[in-house]
């Protein structure tokens, strides 16, 4: 039995700065051992414990899609001790990865449905993974209409601009990008995510809304979805909490009797309403 606390080693293959202020970067990692890559069998919405040996570990959502073979990607914002240290890393440096962890987006349940992906700011990484996955030629037929609504404070903070530009040009996906305030050169939508969702007005018919973003955006978007007649079972969210082990042992990420790391991070709004706990 290999210890679940021991990370697999990867090498940084590329680093892409994702925003104007340069505090969000996407790291592309390649496993040092081929077997590790096979073991790392994930679905969109899962996360991994990323570690810099000697500095520590932190949970990060997987930004790549399992359909992107050969490497995995993590979009990391410079926040605390570990993420700051990772931001000092260069291509070729070694990063530890434990995972995949968590339940991920319920792919089987999403099949045959219209999918509305709603994201705000930095919280788009596992949504990117999901959209990328659904658009893959092997999977596209499993899903009906795909709509992406993604908001940011300004256009320099929009993640994955290459992917989004590609998606915008595609026929089988609707993309609505928005920024909070008008900017010179921006010809997309302007306004917070919730009113844009209301304007796009997706039908709840055979649909699932997947919402990720800062708490206030989640709250206002939930209200809009409710108004649009989405049932709590049709709304999925991914939670964040302080974590250490990621495997349900260290204790701290509980909401009531559920552990975000193993029972989540993905919960439906219906499940969340039933959960009594601190969050």
């Amino acid at each position, binding site marked *: *039995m*290999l*210890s*679940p*606390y*021991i*990370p697999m*080693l990867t090498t940084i293959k590329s680093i892409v700065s994702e925003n104007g202020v340069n505090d969000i970067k996407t790291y592309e990692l390649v496993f040092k051992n081929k077997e590790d890559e096979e073991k790392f069998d994930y679905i969109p919405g899962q996360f991994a414990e990323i*570690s810099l*040996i*000697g*500095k*520590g*570990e932190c949970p990060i959502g997987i930004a790549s899609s399992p359909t992107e073979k050969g490497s995995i990607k993590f979009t990391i914002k410079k*926040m*605390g001790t570990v*993420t700051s240290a990772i931001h000092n890393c260069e291509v*070729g*440096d*070694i990063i*530890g990865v434990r995972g995949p962890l968590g339940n991920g987006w319920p792919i089987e349940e999403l099949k045959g449905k219209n999918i509305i992906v709603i994201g705000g700011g930095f919280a788009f990484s596992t949504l990117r993974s999901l959209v990328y996955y659904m658009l893959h030629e092997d999977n596209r037929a499993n899903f009906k209409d795909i709509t992406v609504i993604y908001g940011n404070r300004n256009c320099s903070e929009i993640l994955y601009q290459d992917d989004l530009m590609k998606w915008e040009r595609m026929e089988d996906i609707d993309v609505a990008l928005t920024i909070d305030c008008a900017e010179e050169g921006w010809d997309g939508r302007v306004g917070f995510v919730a009113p844009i969702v209301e304007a796009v007005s997706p039908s709840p018919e055979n649909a699932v809304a997947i919402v990720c973003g800062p708490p206030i955006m989640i709250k206002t978007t939930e209200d809009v979805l409710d108004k649009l007649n989405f049932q709590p079972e049709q709304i999925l969210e991914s939670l*964040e*909490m*302080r974590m*250490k*082990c990621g*495997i*349900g*042992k*260290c*204790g*701290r990420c*509980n*909401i*009531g*009797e559920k552990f975000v790391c*193993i029972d989540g991070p993905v919960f439906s709004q219906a499940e969340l309403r039933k959960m*009594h*706990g*601190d*969050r």
Partner: protein
Amino acid sequence: MKEKILKKDQVKQLHEDLSRYYSFYAPTKVKGNIVFKKITNPEDIELEYLNSKIPPKEILFPRMETLFSYKIDEKNIEIEPRTDLEEKILIFGVRPCDAYSFSLLETFFNFGQFKDDLFMKKKENTVVIGLACNTPRATCFCTSLDYNGHPHRKDDVDIFLTDLGENYLVNPISETGKAIIDKLAWLSEANNDDLQKAEELSKKAESLISTKLDLQHTAEILDPSFNHPLWKEVSENCLGCGTCTFLCPTCTCFDVVEDVDHYNNRGKRVRIWDTCQFCLYTLETSGHNPRNTKIERCRNRVLHKFNYYPKNYDLIGCVGCGRCIHLCPVNNDLREIIKKINAIKNENKKEEVVVA
């Protein structure tokens, strides 16, 4: 298999025989506190004790434990897994409540997709020799718990000892225990008087447990009581230290830190005991803290043991040892908290009557 007799002066012999095969842990007195330590000199074993201050869980889930070590060589990193988990461990003189805590911890660490290999391997290699509790404290309440807790409970050990005064009655319980007893050919046979005496002591010990708590409905009462004013009340004088949790035989929370030896380019990733009573335990990097005040933190401790454990593992996360009660610096008594919780039920009932 028949019961045996171990004379008190033969404990030395027992230690000598068994420490050849096992790392022999037993209660010993260190600066006035009873703690379980690896025993090299059998004179240090202290069996006339109420219960240890730090529970013997410390042997299988230590205060600080290496998850793995590593060597950093320029840009290369080499990870070294633990290699010392095959050590054969024998824990001698464990009280029944603490012996049950091992079973409880096993349920927890073995639960779900990810097993805690460190605990599980050590547990697998551990032999437990229990010691009947003839002198329960006023704060003990094992008999109130769902595991048929009893000061003479034998279920969670390999061999069970009862202090008969001059001698210990030796009960082999598990197959491992029987095999060990087989090897200790010098043990004498127990007679009917010994068995009867043990039986009497067991009844007497049970009668000495004065704390009786009704825990039958506590879990279900707690379900709708998340926002009850009770939590403010019971957390009012809490100082927010970690005594109740650090000295609890069932608490398992840990933090993970790096212990780096920069001079030698080596390091260890270690886990250390952590507690839900600390503000930092849940503080997120963003500054948000889901359990920002002691109200939420005190509530989490009680709910974890008396509501979340029953929901997740179908057992109460408490063994009834009473350590948190008599060691709390401000005497925030768990028994009183349970009584207040149970009183909510009556509150609810009264409301029902009014509504009817």
